[in-house]
């Protein structure tokens, strides 16, 4: 009977309906190819099982149901064989049909069928629940983790790798849990059970049909080995082509105005030709392993038909037994193909799980204090006392001292890498200092919970990040929102006011959808200067006693910049301010300018004082370089 074969084939090739797996069968073969490397398979497995703990009864029931379903499945051909035997006797010995016996077997079969149906269905549903729960919980754990990681982790890791953990590795674990695990399990049980049944029916025939297994196994293995370079080449060409297309699209200005469209098209065409060539070859190869395995199994089937037929004629085997045997041979094929891939599937899922766990084990921020802050009563006095800090082993800050009085506007200047951003990073406690103390209003900042401390600051970062969402929500993001509220809780008037103070209102109102304009990911639909205006508005809506502007207006013209500074004064005339700027013109009116070089404060004073001093600042200023 072909149904088992086809069922399994379907599952393997096309995955769960709705889950794309590349070109048809290619998914299966490349699945076999991507064997993962695990450092500690046992530990990872154990930990994965621990994640299952809260659903252990669901999980165990699913496993038991799968096992019984497989056992029932093994019994069915045997029972049908019995019916065939009744008919054989009826035809050869011309006896009357024993309807009672037939009815009895039929009833047993019906019960088995219904049992099989329910146990299959229920175990499937249970497994879906288990795996979806585990995956949801792992996803949430990852997001929580992300928000608890130290920033050093982000400095070291690529965003792409982290996203890939979530989108590829977790998916791999989920798929294996949901379908891989139970179907592998049932494949093994079927395999063992079927072999046992075949031996019971006829050991010689059983041995014959087993003989083909190693042959088939090595053949598939051999083909996969041969196929590997073809797949790799295809993957590389796909990457090359995609990269080039991306560049051709993103570089549209140059492509069009320098008339290189023609050359580029020619280049893409030849890449496209190559890709075509490798694409059809690699998908052909991915299909070939299946027919090759089938050829062996099918010839085996034919051989058994002849040999078995001989046994029946000789009277060694009943016709029912013969028919059951052939059914078992067919049943073997699906699980057999699956068992071939089980090891790789499980190992690759474990490797994925291991990577996810590694992420979940990364260093977290350590909370040192637990005091709360009343942001409104903070005067804004800041003091650094012998602060040591380094991103690596080497200290960048070695005993930095600094005192800022409430309401003072402090500018920080210096060359790239001088430690300007580091200074504000430490104020915001993005990183922990390794020595010395930072005081806020005379109190050691470490005594506060990190979140509380940050309530005292309103910051515009150098990194102009906006999320994909409406302009309105992006500005509202700066405001405090209740614990279970969302951005729509923020008053629209205060959003508009912040936009006005940041001089963002005029461009926003010019947009066809105004404040409801949806920013795409990376805010590519507005200009860089406009992005900066929005990040300033976002900071302005948060009314904090200390304001930090880190290269906040680098893409904004100087006149608008001046207007924004007026806006800031209007908003919070008595706030303490830290301003880092690329253009020296931006900071000339600051109360004090702090000049930094390789982590040390080299000069302090007003613009005029520093110019008269004719030191580092004056030199930098005259070179027009900051």
């Amino acid at each position, binding site marked *: 009977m072909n149904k088992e074969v*086809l069922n399994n084939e379907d599952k393997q090739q096309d995955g769960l*309906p709705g889950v*794309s797996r590349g070109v048809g069968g290619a998914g299966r073969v490349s699945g076999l190819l991507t064997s993962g490397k695990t450092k500690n398979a046992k530990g990872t497995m154990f930990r994965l099982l621990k994640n299952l703990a809260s659903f252990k009864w669901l999980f165990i029931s699913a496993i038991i149901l799968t096992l019984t379903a497989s056992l029932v499945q093994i019994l069915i051909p045997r029972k*049908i064989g019995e019916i*065939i035997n*009744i008919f054989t006797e009826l035809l050869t010995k011309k006896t009357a*049909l024993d309807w009672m016996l037939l009815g009895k077997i039929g009833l047993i*079969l019906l019960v088995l069928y219904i049992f*099989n*149906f329910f146990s*299959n*269905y229920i175990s499937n549903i249970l497994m*879906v629940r288990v795996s*979806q*729960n585990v995956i949801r919980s792992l*996803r949430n754990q990852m*997001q929580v983790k992300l*928000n608890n990681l130290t920033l050093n982790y*982000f400095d070291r890791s690529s965003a792409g790798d982290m*996203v890939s953990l979530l989108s590829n590795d977790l998916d791999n674990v989920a798929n294996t849990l*949901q379908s891989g695990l139970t179907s592998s399990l049932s494949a093994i049980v079927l395999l063992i059970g079927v072999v046992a049944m075949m031996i019971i029916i006829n050991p010689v025939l059983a041995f014959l049909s087993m003989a083909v297994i190693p042959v088939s196994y090595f053949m598939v293995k051999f083909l996969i080995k041969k196929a590997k370079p073809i797949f790799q080449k295809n993957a590389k060409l796909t990457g090359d*082509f995609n990269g080039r*297309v991306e*560049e051709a699209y993103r*570089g549209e*200005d*140059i492509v*069009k*105005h320098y*008339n290189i469209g023609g050359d580029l098209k020619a280049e*893409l*065409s030849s890449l496209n030709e190559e890709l*075509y060539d490798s*694409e*059809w*070859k690699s998908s*052909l190869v991915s*299909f070939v392993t299946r027919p090759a395995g089938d*050829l062996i199994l099918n*010839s085996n089937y*034919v051989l058994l*038909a002849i040999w078995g037929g001989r046994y029946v004629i000789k009277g060694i085997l009943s*016709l029912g037994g013969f028919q059951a045997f052939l059914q078992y041979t067919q049943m073997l094929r699906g699980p057999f193909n699956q068992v071939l891939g089980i090891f790789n599937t499980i190992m690759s899922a474990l490797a994925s799980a291991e990577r996810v766990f590694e992420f979940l084990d990364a260093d977290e921020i350590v909370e040192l204090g637990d005091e709360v802050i009343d942001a409104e009563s903070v005067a804004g006095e800041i003091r650094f006392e012998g602060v040591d800090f380094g991103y690596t082993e080497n200290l960048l800050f070695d005993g930095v001292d600094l005192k800022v009085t409430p309401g003072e506007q402090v500018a920080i200047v210096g060359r790239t890498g001088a430690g300007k951003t580091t200074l504000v990073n430490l104020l*915001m406690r993005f990183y922990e200092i390794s020595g010395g103390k930072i005081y806020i209003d005379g109190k050691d900042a470490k005594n506060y919970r990190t979140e509380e401390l*940050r309530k005292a600051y309103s*910051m515009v*970062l150098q*990194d102009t*990040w906006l999320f994909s969402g409406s302009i309105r929500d992006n500005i509202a993001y700066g405001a405090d929102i209740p614990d279970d509220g969302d951005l729509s809780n923020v008053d629209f008037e205060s959003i508009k006011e912040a936009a006005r103070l940041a001089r963002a209102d005029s*461009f926003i109102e010019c947009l066809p959808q105004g404040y409801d304009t949806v920013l*795409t990911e990376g805010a590519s639909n507005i200009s860089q200067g406009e992005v900066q205006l929005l990040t300033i508005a*976002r900071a302005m809506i948060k009314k904090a006693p200390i304001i930090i502007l880190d290269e906040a207006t680098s893409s904004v013209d100087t*006149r*608008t910049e001046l207007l924004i500074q007026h806006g800031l004064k209007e908003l919070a005339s008595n706030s303490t301010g830290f301003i880092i700027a690329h253009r020296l*013109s931006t900071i*000339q009116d600051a109360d004090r300018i702090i000049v930094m070089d390789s982590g040390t404060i080299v000069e302090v004073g007003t*613009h005029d004082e520093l110019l008269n001093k004719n030191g580092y600042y004056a030199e930098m*200023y005259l*070179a027009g*370089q900051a």
Partner: protein
Amino acid sequence: MLLRYAKKYSKFIVAQLFFATVWVFAQLLIPRLMVDIVDFGIMAKDMTAIINRGLLMLAATVLNIVALMISLYFLTRATAGISRDLRADLFEKVIDWSKETRADFSNSTLITRTVNDVKQVSNFIDLSLRKIFTLSITVIGALVVSFSLDAKLASIILIIIPVIFLLGLFLTTRALPQYSRIRLSIDRINQLFRENIRGIRVIRAFNKSDYEVREFEKATKEAYDANIKSESTMMLLSPLILLFTNILILVILFMGGGRAEIGTIKLGVLIGLIEYASISLSNIQQFASIITIIPRSKVSIDRISEVLSTEELLEIKEDTLQSELIGISFKDIDFYYPGSRRAALRNLNFTLNKGETKAIIGSTGSGKSTVLKLLLRDYDAFHGRICLNGRNIQTLTREEIGGIVTYIPQSSFLFSGSIRENIQTGKKDAGDDEIWEVLDMVQMGDFFRESSEGLDTHIAQNAVNFSGGQKQRLSIARGLIRESDFYIFDDCFSALDYATEKKVREAIKEKFADKGVLVVAQRVATVREADEILVLERGEILDRGSHEYLAETSEIYKEILASQIKSQEGEIR
């Protein structure tokens, strides 16, 4: 739309379908031979009949495999061919589009359409040719053979097939809306996670970690619900069809039993019918689950057609007026961005002649870049006329415009490849001497002379191995090497320090003394030496004149100057 593309490969497709039919035929022949082995061999105790049929079966097996391989060969050729043609048509079209035409598509969606959607369509073609076709003829074939074996029992199979098919269709269509829900929620999950990584500092600065976790949990819950809902339905399909198949077999056996008693059916036929019944039903099941891919493919097909059916909006008009004038002129230009209510440019008039340097200064969003977009015909003006060298810009081809004007953009996009290749995008046959010359002009010559790889230095994708200022200078060099009458600098000195900028500007001034230069900038230092400076504010030229004149008379210019004056002093010394 797909049919048009498939046409080119009709030979491959016909061959594929032919061999797939042979494959199905051989596949169905095997159980039929088994029927004969049982009836004429085993029951008749005739060993030679068994062996003869067995050999035929072996032949059928080989034929089966060979036909499958050949059909797969044609299939992969056709599928890969259609994706190649789709990709080619897409990029050929997109590369030629003007900005105005392209306005509705972001770069990322265009890339997705050229790469992922084509892949999806190719999956669809693969499945329809490989699966849907063979599944259908297998079912039909199995039915035909069944009827030839025993019409009465076969009709039971015929009755149950539509039932199963409808059942499968019902379950699948019920699960379908959940699939798009799953996809959307997974996209959302990935997007939130990606954004959270990118914005981690901002999120922490504003204490929004809890909010981000809450938003994320909403998305994972959505994915969970959709998955449970769809899978609870879809997981029913396979066991249910198995149940139907088994019951059908039981029915056939019982009816067969009755017939065997009165001797009107042979055992082999009975076994054969059971086999064909299960073949038909399992094929129907696969059919039902494959249908799920169709709506998804349709989305992709629609997205591709949308690109392919978008025609260039800016057509090249017939040449009507021509004069010998060499220069650029804007006359009474009004411009609105598509969908915008406010004029981006209003009543704009200016000319630029060879040997002149003019500059446009203004705030962020004043319309400076828009002027250049019209000058390059990224967009067409709403009203008024733009002439390049005496010819209406609307009558010029893209190549002609590029020959007259060299544009150096604000964003310094570089291609991956060597420095030489990048500079040569400006001038295809530029020799190393010329390349060194322009690199020296942008003060990058020594930098590369000192590097071991010189002009072969590799630029990575997105030029991540160069700083903002270096990228900008390379982008300028690439423009300087071009030969044209006019050069346009779109705020492209912004990442340079004053000293370097000054040197670069001096080098440009020297080389292009007899060319027309248009500079767009925010810095006064960049524009002060221009013959005429246009002060742009909210799309209108408010004031125009020399630096000295504007410094006396223009309010806005004075404000700009005031915001920069001290650094000016610093620069002038």
